[in-house]
């Protein structure tokens, strides 16, 4: 049906990853904010994970394109 769903998934999580990681870095000095997540900067951790996941999805798309060529 003309859509490789991995593209939007990959793009969205790449954007989320960049946004949340940057936000995590900028707010890193704010100890109060991260008290609730057990003093761990979860924004950075989850941000990086999402970035990796998003890029991985996009990589799969790229590999699939190469194979069909």
């Amino acid at each position, binding site marked *: *049906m003309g*859509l490789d*769903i991995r593209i939007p998934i990959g793009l*969205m999580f790449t954007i989320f990853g960049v*946004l949340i990681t940057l936000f995590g870095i900028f707010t890193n000095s704010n100890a109060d904010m991260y008290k609730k997540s057990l003093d761990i900067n*979860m*924004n950075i951790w989850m941000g990086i994970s999402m970035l990796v996941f998003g890029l991985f999805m996009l990589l799969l798309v790229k590999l699939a394109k190469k194979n069909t060529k």
Partner: protein
Amino acid sequence: MLHLEWIDYLIMVIYFVFVLGIGWVLKKHMKTAGAFLEAGRSMPAWVAGLAFISTNLGALEVMGMTGSGMKYGMLTTHFYWIGAIPAMIFLALFMMPFYYGSKARSVPEFLKLRYDEKTRGLNAILFAIMTILASGISMYALALLMNSVLGWDFNVSLWVSAIIVLVYTYLGGLSSAIYNEVLQFFIIVIGLLPLVILALMEVGGWSGLKEHLAPIVEAKGYASDAYLTTWKYTGNMKGNPLGVEWFGILFGLGFVMSFGYWCTNFLIVQRAMAAESKAAAIKVPLIGALPKMFIPFLIIVPGIAAIWLSSIHPDAFKILGLDSAHPRYDYTIIALLQYYLPTGLLGLGITALLASFMSGMAGNVSAFNTVWTYDIYQSYIRPVTKDKEGDDKHYLTVGKITTIAGVLLSIAAAYIAGKFGNIMDFLQTIFAMINAPLFAVIFLGMFWKRTTGHAAFVGLLAGFFVALLHHGLTIPFGSDTMFKGGWISNMMGIENIYVYPVEMAQNFWTAIFAFTTAVSLTVGLSFVTKQQKSDAELTGLVYSLTPRVKVHVDEWYNRPVVLAVIVGVIMIGLSIIFW
């Protein structure tokens, strides 16, 4: 109340842009009724497989299951393991070949091909009503939640979320619903993942959870590990928090309820029917089953941790109203989001909840759409003519209008649910009673060629009435409302026949009675009524009359039986580990 910052809203907005964008991209492919209502039967197995479980992972499911985790502990996993996996394997290996191979476009249409018009009509109408009800109730719950937790206006939340779902299902039909369900699946998993990680870190892992829970659980009068085991204390219904014994769980939930739901609910089956080939359709439920088995760790385990967390930080969990007579267990997940997630991830978590709501609602709308257009409109209002092309155009237009009508009806149902919530829940319970007899009828139809249309119709109807009768004459212990059962005895001023210890046991037994009635009547009447369909007509619909085509698959891991065995082994393994 939760406080959101600009970054949280930004995440939400980006998500909406992608959701609508998917609909927009698919718009140009929506040229025929088949493309719009059946996704052109073109979905890869993994896409349909993820959509298959995502559509079931609606907001009420997510919230309800976390709440049940807090209420019943690990016993809630019965809804995911014994209560889903065997049925999904059965659907894949034994039923999908006939659903898909019959070329039926819906479950009611399968009933028409296998039996007759009246059986299809009965099922189609009940299904259409049930879908709108379900969709309305979940919309109401979502708007209420957004209102009480985020302070958003009730009407605005209701209309905005409904319109987003409407736009993307209107633009891209079933394909759009399915693709979005895959996107939603990932966002639900990733958005809620921090909860279980942080909860387990705080309680000190599984052993820490065990240790912390022991005194609380013992104080409630159970064995110290009763909330962290699944089968261990089911020998007797008083020994476990679920209040049901092993037989009820195994037969009521694991067989009648779960097969009734997973194998016959068109909302679910439609995802597998949209697969690109018969081989893919068979794999869809199996692929869905793999992540399904692990969802309990995502949504149930945090709920269990909340039992301890709420005891040491009662203020943070005030929203649940645990000290009142009617605690709001459904809000457990909200309390956890608020308790753990910093700005940024909080936005992602709320977006995950919105996504789960949308996947549930889009599922209902797209299933309603197909059943209305093909099984009601095309059969009773405007049948097909000789002009094939004109017909297709016509039904595409009808499908599109139905999408709008379906969403508007759901909105209406949501307002009714707000005014008469009890009645809506009651109606939903009643309509769900059709599932068990429906499974009986479809199962007999697929595996016994003698089953006749008249017998199936009577079996379906009688099973439904027996369920009503049982629900009307029994009550769960401590019930103070007629909506939970006992309404017949109440109206006639007689004693209830039986008092169940908990509502769930009553539900299981309602399903068991309905199923048994449907099976015995359908079998009995099939012997005395004449088979209207010839063997040729039944080819491809009945097991014994369908030639077995061996599908050759090169990779061993792509063979359905191999996949089914893997799924089964993992399920048994999980059940043993958490015995």
